[in-house]
């Protein structure tokens, strides 16, 4: 178990983020009692009397201003991850979709086409099983499984631990396969360069407006299983219109992970994005 955060990971990790004075582990902040309260926040006492004059068993109530983003802890870990990727010229992509869209098949097919050319690794988020990680490892690239249990998304802290155990070479391509869920993962920044949302044509063209948060957060939408279009009445143009309504900047690629149709454009996009990471711009 990670002794800093009690997060259940059994690694001898360095916990890079623990040096961050903002890092929110309560026991690190005991010294803060020495400071005057006013250094932190402004208090306004309510009508219940001065806070130090309380009789035993009767504690006066007061208001404490906090003003913090609920996701601030996650976002600090995400910044750590982003710095890690930046320093190593790595491309990290956060793949999100509903269950069964074909994320794992897209990954295995992608890896088979690129693994001789690039360093690739995968972080697999799954609620219970290790099946997907096993499918990835069968392609010959490293995969770390994060079981989220009842959790419906990956968070940046657990991804940071997975990175420590992967210890990837520079300029690696890292896929983070998030839990199959079009709602919750949209709120959690993992430090990735892009969220990529995978939508299969069997799911109906109105998914972008039914789950707008995810399509809003993604930079690329992959329309998968196009081999099935002849058998469905899925309206591709309407689907793209909906996606652009939610996110005018979203890019769309159409492909079939199964037949390989359209895969070339996806591979080109990956190589181009990885090249961009290698520029090392600040």
């Amino acid at each position, binding site marked *: 178990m990670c002794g800093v955060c009690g997060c259940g990971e059994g690694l001898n990790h360095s916990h890079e983020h623990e040096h961050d004075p903002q890092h929110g582990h309560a026991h690190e902040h005991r010294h803060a009692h020495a400071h005057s*309260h006013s250094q932190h926040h402004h208090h306004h006492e309510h009508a219940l009397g001065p806070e130090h004059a309380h009789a035993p068993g009767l504690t006066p109530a007061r*208001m404490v*201003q*906090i*003003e913090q983003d609920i996701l601030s802890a996650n976002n600090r870990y995400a910044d750590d991850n982003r710095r890690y990727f930046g320093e190593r010229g790595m491309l990290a992509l956060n793949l999100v979709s509903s269950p069964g869209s074909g994320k794992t098949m897209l990954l295995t097919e992608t890896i088979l086409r690129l693994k001789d050319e690039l360093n690739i690794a995968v972080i697999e988020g799954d609620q219970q099983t290790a099946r997907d990680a096993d499918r990835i490892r069968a392609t010959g690239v490293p995969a770390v499984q994060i079981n989220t249990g009842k959790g419906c998304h990956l968070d940046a802290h657990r991804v940071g631990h997975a990175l420590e155990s992967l210890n990837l070479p520079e300029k690696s391509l890292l896929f983070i396969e998030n839990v199959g869920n079009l709602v919750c993962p949209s709120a959690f920044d993992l430090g990735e360069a892009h969220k990529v949302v995978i939508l299969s044509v069997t799911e109906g063209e109105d998914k972008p407006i039914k789950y707008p948060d995810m399509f809003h957060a993604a930079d690329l939408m992959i329309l998968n299983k196009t081999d099935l279009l002849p058998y469905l009445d899925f309206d591709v143009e309407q689907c793209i219109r909906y996606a652009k309504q939610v996110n005018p900047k979203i890019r769309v690629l159409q492909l079939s992970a199964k037949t390989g149709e359209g895969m070339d454009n996806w591979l080109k996009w990956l190589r181009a994005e990885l090249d961009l990471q290698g520029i090392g711009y600040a």
Partner: protein
Amino acid sequence: MHEMSLCEGVLHIIEREAQTQGFGRVKTVWLEIGALAGVEPEAMRFCFDAVMRGSLADGAGLEIIAAPGVAWCLPCGKNVAVSQLYDVCPNCGSHQLQIVGGDQMRIKELEVE
């Protein structure tokens, strides 16, 4: 149900503040939740009670302050009100909207003792 994790985030912040600001119990928590934040207030209330149980905010009241959605419309060059991420500009019908408010989820203040 990422509301569960969000409530865990709230508790995490409260516990840290309890250390730095020296309070022992929390009676009321005020959250500001934007209309475009993808958070269901009812799910939030449900998870809040479960997550706070046994903590220093056990039984605390939850007050949710709703913040309206605001987007900047490129063609109109000004802010307009939106209630969904897929809304079009109410003036010109454009999709070229950039969300500038209503996606926040913040803990605002606490009543403590």
